[in-house]
């Protein structure tokens, strides 16, 4: 069991409140997944610069002087914003791959959570309320965001096993369920050159979508493909720089509820997660159909 929440805003006036609303939704889903929590938030564009969210188990040592060291390695301007065990590095666009290689040398053991123009991912082991507090998710604004509360099944309770997973620029995925063909698919995708860091089944799902999109598929087409190529139980919620998608496997035993108003599209594993959203009483509320791709774009 896991809990998923997601919010895709249509009304710009709600953007400053995105983190606040998502935090309430996330905490409501604590009893579906109390071991870890994470959130992907699509915030402000960094003026054409790329953002890398990194995580370290020893943040003080890892982040001390990191901006300077990375700036020197890349011969470029790098800034750092430290938030608990995570830090957001801003660097010139196009330097992400170079930065990843440099970071692996400068700070072995540090993990890259996400890369892109607007995405930031924060995830840790612990109760969702505590995780949200550590990163002050309430204070974050943005256009859309996805949160996950985890009850581990397929891999250990660790930071890297927590969701969301990001395997491509500004892409992220969260999952409720379990995939049964992830080992074979991981080997196949690695042969294709897709980066997969963990033993987790969901990361393979994310990497699969990234691989499909690298080969020309739209997110909608990639999600359609997942219905053919992924074996197991899944309700997926995915984010891209300007999009938000949902798909459930054909058996659809993992719960899902959606709500849409003029102001937002919201996803919850249970209706409980949606009850405090503005105007929910008059929202269109429905259960997404099995094997059906839902997708919204800004």
């Amino acid at each position, binding site marked *: 069991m896991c809990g998923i929440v997601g919010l895709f805003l249509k009304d710009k006036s709600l953007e400053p409140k995105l983190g606040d609303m998502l935090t309430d939704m996330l905490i409501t889903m604590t009893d579906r997944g109390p071991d870890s929590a994470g959130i992907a938030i699509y915030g402000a564009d960094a003026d054409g610069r790329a953002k890398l969210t990194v995580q370290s188990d020893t943040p003080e040592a890892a982040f001390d002087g990191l901006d300077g060291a990375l700036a020197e390695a890349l011969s470029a301007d790098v800034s750092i914003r430290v938030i608990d065990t995570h830090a957001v590095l801003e660097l010139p666009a196009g330097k992400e791959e170079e930065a990843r290689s440099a970071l692996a040398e400068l700070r072995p053991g540090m993990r890259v959570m996400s890369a892109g123009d607007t995405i930031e991912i924060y995830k840790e082991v612990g109760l969702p309320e505590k995780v949200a507090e550590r990163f002050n998710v309430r204070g974050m604004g943005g256009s859309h965001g996805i949160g996950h509360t985890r009850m581990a099944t397929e891999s250990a309770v660790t930071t890297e096993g927590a969701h969301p997973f990001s395997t491509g620029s500004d892409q992220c995925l969260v999952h409720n369920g379990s995939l049964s063909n992830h080992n074979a698919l991981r080997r196949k995708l690695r042969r294709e050159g897709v980066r997969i860091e963990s033993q987790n089944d969901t990361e393979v799902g994310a990497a699969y979508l990234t691989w499909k999109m690298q080969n020309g598929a739209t997110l909608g087409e990639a999600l359609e493909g997942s219905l053919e190529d992924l074996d197991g139980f899944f309700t997926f919620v995915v984010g891209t720089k300007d999009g938000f998608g949902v798909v459930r496997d054909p058996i659809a035993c993992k719960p899902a*509820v959606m709500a849409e108003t003029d102001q937002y599209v919201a996803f919850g594993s249970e209706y409980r997660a*949606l009850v405090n959203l503005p105007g929910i009483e008059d929202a269109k509320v429905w259960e997404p159909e099995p094997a059906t791709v839902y997708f919204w774009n800004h």
Partner: protein
Amino acid sequence: MQTYDLEANGLRGLNSALQELNGSSNKTAWEIVNPKGSHAIAVGLNSPIEVTVKGSTGYYCAGMNQQATVKVEGSAGPGVAENMMSGTVIVEGDASQYAGATGHGGLLVIKGNASSRCGISMKGIDIVVHGNIGHMCAFMAQAGNLVVLGDAGDALGDSCYEARFFVRGNVKSLGADCIEKEMRPEHIEILKDLLARAGADAKPEEFKRYGSARTLYNFDVDNAQAY
């Protein structure tokens, strides 16, 4: 009429207050406000009380119901009225997966749509859905009636026993050993009564009946290779 604020007073207090009436012939009416999608609202009741939930519910609302009438003025999450023995449960909105699962008796009315696995393993319950139902409904159904005014999804009645299914709209596909059957006068009578009790505006003659072909009841030597 007694009003109970679920958000202010909690679930345990509600269910213990309602279950205290179990075994009595008390016909009081209860109204539950601020359900906010909570789980297990009004479960395990066994007295002829009337409970109205003012909003949508989470998992297992009105589970194991006996005698009571529970009305949800909203939509219901997974497992509404599961294992119901008697009484009536009415959902004004939609119901999520496995509504009325394993129910032994009573009447479940869903005024909107029901999603997957509605009536799975039903054992005597009557279910009337005013809208559509999803896939794998009435899987392994043993007894009772499932009435659908709209359409049915894939694999209706897979591996069913003696339950009856009446569908007015289209059936996407029938499950293993489920077939269309003749609608005889006694079925029209059963359906007429159920539609009236469920407040459904439909004519029994508009429905088709489905049920078990009974070919899975006994071992068939031609299937030996499958094992």
